[in-house]
């Protein structure tokens, strides 16, 4: 079993969306799974989220969006992350995301979208696998 560093994830809320349940439950579930979780706070701009991702040296940025603002701020966030050389950081998005948007989100570089009802086990397993791949590690 490899002794790899714990996975670090920044959970982010952007715009004025203050739905709290998803991000609260996720923070707890990911911590219970052994991840290091950092929360951006509410009502953030893509600028602040990209800067925190860089500063906190995270493996994953997980954005929670339930008010329909994702098609506006996700492209901007990914552009800023690329500018800062964060191409390898895994970006996932969860919340109320219409099926029609998922392909467009993949095109701009969102690695994975989880819609309502996604299970914690699936999210944890996906992040473990994807981060291991990015780090070039074998899965324990």
């Amino acid at each position, binding site marked *: 079993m490899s002794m790899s560093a714990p996975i670090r994830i920044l959970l982010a809320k952007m715009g004025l969306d203050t739905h*709290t*349940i998803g991000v609260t439950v996720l923070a707890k579930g990911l911590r219970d799974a052994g991840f290091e979780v950092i929360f951006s*706070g509410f009502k953030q701009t893509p600028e602040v989220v990209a800067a925190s991702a860089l500063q906190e040296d995270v493996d994953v940025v997980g954005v929670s969006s339930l008010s329909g603002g994702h098609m506006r701020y996700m492209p901007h966030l990914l552009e800023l992350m690329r500018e800062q050389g964060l191409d390898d950081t895994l970006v996932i998005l969860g919340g109320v995301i219409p099926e029609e948007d998922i392909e467009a989100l993949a095109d701009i570089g969102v690695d994975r979208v989880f819609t309502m009802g996604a299970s914690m086990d699936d999210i944890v397993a996906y992040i473990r696998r994807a981060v291991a791949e990015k780090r070039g590690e074998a899965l324990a």
Partner: protein
Amino acid sequence: MNAEHKPAYGYSTQLLSTSLEAWQKQVWQPAVEAQPERQEQFLTQSMRWDIKPLYTPLDLEEIGFRYEADLGFPGQAPYTRETRPTGYRSRLWAMTQVTGFGTGEDSAKRWAYMLEQGLDSLIIEYDLPTTNGYDSDHPLARGEVCRAGMALDSLQDMEDALNFPLDKLNNIMSVCNAPQPVNLAMLIAALEKKGKALDSIRLMMPNAILIEYTCVGRYIFPPKHGLRIATDVIEYVIRNHPTWAPLSVVGAQLYAARANPVQEIAFSFAIAKSYIDALLERGFHIDEVAPYVRHITGIDTDFFESVAKLRAYRKVWGRIMRDQYGAQKPESLRLQLMSSPGTMDMTLQQPLNNIARLGIQMLACAAAGGAYTINTPLHDEAHALPSEEAIAIGASIHNIVAHESGVADTIDPLAGSYYVEYLTRRVEDAVLEEMEKIDAMGGALKAIEEGYFQRKLAEQQNARNRAIESGERKLVGVNYLVKPGEKREIEIFRLDDSAEQRQLERLRKLRASRDNSKVQRHLDAVRAACRDGGNLVPPILAAVKDYVTHGELCQVMREEFGEHDPNALTPDI
């Protein structure tokens, strides 16, 4: 046993105990051995309380149930059977749905459609820039304008929004908690401009800012200023428009944040007490304010838990008003309730199943009674804003329950059920216990400032999530009878993407065309009221009539009161 306390059911306790025991041994036990029960334990959905195989009069004796003290008659204390003497036999509940999107013009079209479907009341929701106190052209508003509700920048948007035939409309509820005085002022000014007699429509405002700090998050100012602003609105309405409803404690939001029935009632009542205390400090008598305190509850799919919750809600309220505040007038003791079947129980998966869930929830609301209004969420809730088809189905669910089910035809038809009475009392006792705890903390404002409610809700959210993920709590389509590779089976509503641009253009033109020399004078007057503690509504009403914008007014209040730290919502992340 004291003769006057003898239960009126025609049984003897001793004989019944003996025969129950005999049944258990001779009939039930062999049957369970031949065919074991489906589950090791049966629990209520939300409280997770143990459910016995059978309830009998002995359970009522165990809790000391007394007809007069526990039930009484409709319209009389303790109000368990109904707050109104005739239940739904004289008048059904007002049938309503939440809506609002796009510009004022877009919303007006939708509302006209809703009234044509047989609804008579509207609940208006605003977009996030509006509820957070920003104009549509503020940098933080980008991408959110016109989305989660209607955009409201100035009086002209409200004028557009009310530009449909108002004759069938009985009630408007307008949900804009943090900037409620601005919202109230715009509604008054717009109705006046339409030439509508202000008291011919009942205007209701949740004005529920204290709830926003615990879960929803659409607040602006720190809690104690939030409370002062809300109290200004209540005071203004009581003095100027006494037929309106200036306060609803939205327990439905706590429910949506996964509060169980006991927490929802206890937190809501604790919050209600904060508003009442603030009004009493302004010199009102309890009997002048208590009739204005309304509640909105969220109802979930567990039928019996919901019925018990609704009955306990009104029973405990009357008791608090009488015992803790010394209220005397019957209208002070009668809980004014709007029921809202559960938005949070609407699943994304197999969304048509939600029609069945709504039917059960509506049935519980109608059977338990006590609500003057019932609001239905719609089966496509988890996907998008409602489609026209979903609105029409929602209106039909109201009418099927009202006219086909029979539950609205006698008052409190489930009373006397051993299980219902047992559960009602259990909810009641647990609520009183939780409220004592909150009182000991120093009341709701303190509990919010210290994050108590928020932490309790987070615990509930995690527990519910675990129960669903482990399969312990079954949700059809989510963790049970799942359709692999399910494709969405309904058409959803897509907002016209041009709405934000149209709104921005309107606001730009307004700023260019209004008499800007008056704007600063109005803002100064509002600032002065913030400082000297005068009621904020009159200067804001004068300002909106000269088209001072929503964001400009909120900005002045921001400068005077400061802003609340958004991270206080989640003290533990």
